[in-house]
């Protein structure tokens, strides 16, 4: 985890974004026609190429292979199931090698700790592998079929290539009117711009500042219980703002191009049960797992015990997908057990006290994110032990300084606010960030219901855009890039 080629990413992201925007305008002014798919394709390919050449070559090979296999699955009448199984195996194979080879050799077979082979992990490999599998399975189930160029565009559509959302092929292609000339749709563009600004603000203003606090707290949590609790709480907020910020950006850019990918978040921290949480967190992944793993396993149609086993299996896989380590597996499996528990006791969002449900769900999610963030299980356990010691000291100075923003410094240094502001600011920041997650309207609703079309909307958004612009230079990498 941590920073990756972020500045490069930003630079390239803008480049292909603006470039494709220009092309779009050129194409639409010239009557466009069928050319625009190639424009989108070319910009996406350029984006991936600039990001990581190796990924592009890998993708090309993978796309050709999967496409050929999908044609066979649709066209051939014999042994379709076998064909499908084989093609899924081959599509999954690189992902498995990249992510799990090291884990298998070092943890399961207890071989040496050095990597067996140095694998370069293509960027976004999980996400495009999943999309390819979706296409293969949909082709098998519904004889769903795309032209080759449409298929490539679907796989490498650049706003979504690095971390999703994992759109279904049917949903994606339904929006591609490549035969008509493209006229700018100002409603979509306004939605997209608003979404983009919200995404940037979430990422640059909240997640990145939170990241500094999280890093310090996870290093120094032995100092006091307060540090350990802040570490837990801050990471819960960081991962939400980081990933949902990314998703808002990806969807915002897609909107500008007239695409409406599937949503990934729906105010997850307002959930009343853990089951509801998983319907609102990383929705496209949950959908993928339920449609392509849970239901094929039998879903809830084969009796109670089998349902529970299926849930457990799905969450085990989800944990394993997030990272090849025991802590991720524990994270997934515990969620599985909690979901089974909710099913057994018939706990449903509407059947319990809303406030109580929200608080308890948020706490459970908090605790489990610790396993997600900690380097290994021991760290997670010692963090909890530290909390149990009940040594409530103030935050360490490094932790405090990590979240001090220039505005606060200005208040103290120039406007002579008391210096104790430095001490309470981290808590204010955490509480504010938490409260924002509890707002009734989320970014999707703000765009769908056009809530931004007020004076306040313009004012807040332009200030957010300004602040984001001013903090561009300090961006760190996205957490979900590593999955």
């Amino acid at each position, binding site marked *: 985890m941590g920073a990756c080629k972020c500045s490069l990413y930003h630079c390239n992201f803008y480049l292909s974004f603006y470039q494709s925007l220009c092309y779009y305008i050129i194409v639409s002014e010239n009557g466009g026609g069928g050319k625009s798919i190639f424009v989108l394709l070319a910009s996406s390919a350029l984006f991936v190429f600039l990001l990581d050449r190796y990924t592009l070559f890998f993708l090309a090979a993978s796309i050709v292979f999967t496409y050929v296999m999908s044609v066979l699955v649709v066209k051939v009448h014999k042994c379709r199931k076998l064909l499908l199984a084989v093609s899924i195996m081959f599509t999954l194979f690189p992902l498995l090698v990249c992510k799990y080879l090291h884990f298998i050799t070092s943890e399961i077979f207890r071989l040496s700790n*050095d*990597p067996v082979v*140095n694998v370069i992990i293509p960027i976004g490999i999980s996400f495009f592998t999943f999309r390819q599998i979706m296409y293969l399975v949909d082709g098998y189930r519904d004889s769903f079929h795309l032209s080759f160029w449409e298929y490539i565009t679907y796989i490498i559509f650049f706003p979504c290539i690095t971390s999703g959302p994992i759109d279904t092929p049917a949903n994606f292609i339904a929006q591609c009117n490549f035969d008509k000339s493209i006229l700018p*749709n*100002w*409603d979509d*563009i*306004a939605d997209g*711009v608003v979404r983009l600004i919200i995404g940037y603000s979430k990422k640059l203003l909240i997640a990145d500042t939170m990241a500094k606090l999280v890093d310090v707290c996870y290093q120094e949590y032995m100092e006091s219980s307060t540090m350990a609790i802040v570490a837990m709480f801050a990471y819960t907020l960081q991962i939400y703002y980081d990933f949902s910020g990314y998703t808002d950006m990806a969807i915002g850019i897609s909107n500008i191009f007239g695409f409406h990918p599937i949503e990934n978040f729906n105010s997850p921290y307002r959930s009343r049960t853990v089951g509801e949480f998983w319907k609102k967190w990383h929705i496209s992944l949950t959908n993928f797992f339920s449609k392509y793993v849970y239901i094929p396993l039998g879903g809830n149609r084969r009796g109670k015990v089998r349902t529970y086993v299926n849930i457990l299996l799905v969450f085990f896989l989800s944990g394993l997908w997030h990272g090849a380590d025991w802590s991720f597996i524990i994270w997934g499996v515990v969620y599985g057990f909690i979901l089974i528990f909710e099913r057994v006791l018939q706990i449903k969002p509407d059947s319990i006290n809303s406030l109580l449900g929200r608080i308890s769900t948020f706490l459970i999610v908090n605790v489990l994110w610790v396993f997600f963030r900690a380097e290994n299980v021991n760290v997670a356990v010692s963090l909890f032990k530290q909390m149990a010691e009940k040594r409530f000291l103030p935050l360490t100075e490094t932790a405090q300084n990590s979240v001090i923003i220039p505005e606060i410094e200005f208040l103290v240094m120039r406007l002579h606010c008391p210096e104790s502001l430095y001490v309470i600011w981290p808590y204010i920041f955490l509480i504010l960030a938490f409260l924002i997650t509890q707002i009734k309207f989320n970014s999707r609703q703000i765009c769908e219901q056009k809530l*931004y*079309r007020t004076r306040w*909307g*313009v*004012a807040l*958004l*332009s*200030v957010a*855009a*300004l602040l984001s*612009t*001013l903090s561009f230079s300090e961006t760190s990498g996205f957490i979900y890039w590593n999955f």
Partner: protein
Amino acid sequence: MSSSLAFLKRLLAVYMVLLIGVALTNYIVDPYFCYRESDMAQYFSWDQRYSPVWRYGITKQYKGYNALWVGSSVSSYVDTEYLNDIMDINCCTGRLAGGRPNLYEKYIRNVTANNKLDYIFYEFNVPHWTFTSIGTECDLDTWLPKYIQTKTMLDDGEYLLNRTVTEQSAYTIVGALWDKLIKPGSYIGDADSIMPVDSYYSTEIMAPRIYSNVYYYGPISHEIIMDEYLKAGMDNIDKYVAPLIVEYPDTEFIFVAPPTGAMLPATIYQSGYLEEWLDISETIYRRLLSYPNVRIILSNLDFDYNTNCDHYLDDGHYEPSGAIMMMDCIASGTYEVTLDNMEEMRERYVHLARDFEWPFLKINFEGDQVSDLQSQLVSLGFPVEITGVFDTATENAVRQIQEENGFEVTGIVFSDTADYIDSKCRKNEDDKND
């Protein structure tokens, strides 16, 4: 539909007004006191840590001080409270100037405008000096090994000189040559603008200079390098230092060595130019000491501190304790160089350079450490002769080892490679004994 367009227009308008407002406010308030000074404009793009713009503004605000510390990297560790205590002064600072004597001069003038100074502590960064004023190239083969593996302009220069032009360098060279008309020995770009850390721009500036000179003059001889080095030092003194010394006769100028410690003289020793380098240094010191209000204190002559690699943050910078050591030397006058003890200074440098144990070995290095490495390589079956000089055969062997074992292939023996070779040899011996 139209209301969406209207919204977008309004959003863009407000955003632009805010952005222009911020920029304008910044300009009017001028927090750094230098937006309207044209010769500071080139420093606006420096990165935050080395932002002279920021320091420049601060130095204008100092009042009530009687001493000033100007310097670069290691000076950022100088704790003025400690210095005030041990020397009974009241000291302010202008630090992290990237070793640019022109900036030091500005800082000093800013502070002397409002303060009467008894002392000016001046960290004179010899390596930076040379680059600041050398228009022609350059003392690369002396200085480069020290900067190995760093992300500076020198890094790119090193690629070029070693003929291992990477893709990145090759690309930027083409880009740079394309734009710029190259005249022999011309002064293309200012070393000051090299600082913005991004290697693209640094190569862009370095590459044409190196290439134009190599193209017109052939490979640079070390006589030229040494001449240029001396000229650079003297030029800087004439332009930025001597006028100040003359102008403020009551102020004591205390020149302090940079934090380059033992690695710099040791590198030069490895290249075989130590005596010439010492001659040049001596000339520069004598020139400075010709003024009565100048003292020179070379804390990097402290053998024990400087040869201990634990005291370094990286290959050219002390860790914070280095600043304490420097301040103690200043207060006690230890390692002060005078016109009478030049010989002693030279001996100390030679001792430091010769007896320093390198944390890494690379091509052209000489000495017992290299012989030891070579005999290890021989015992592992590589076709290497034990000559005590790190030659191409040795480098190839090292590369092969690095490639086979998943290390980064550099041909340079860092501790990971060295440890690996050690363990392999030990294992071989154990096997034999069994």
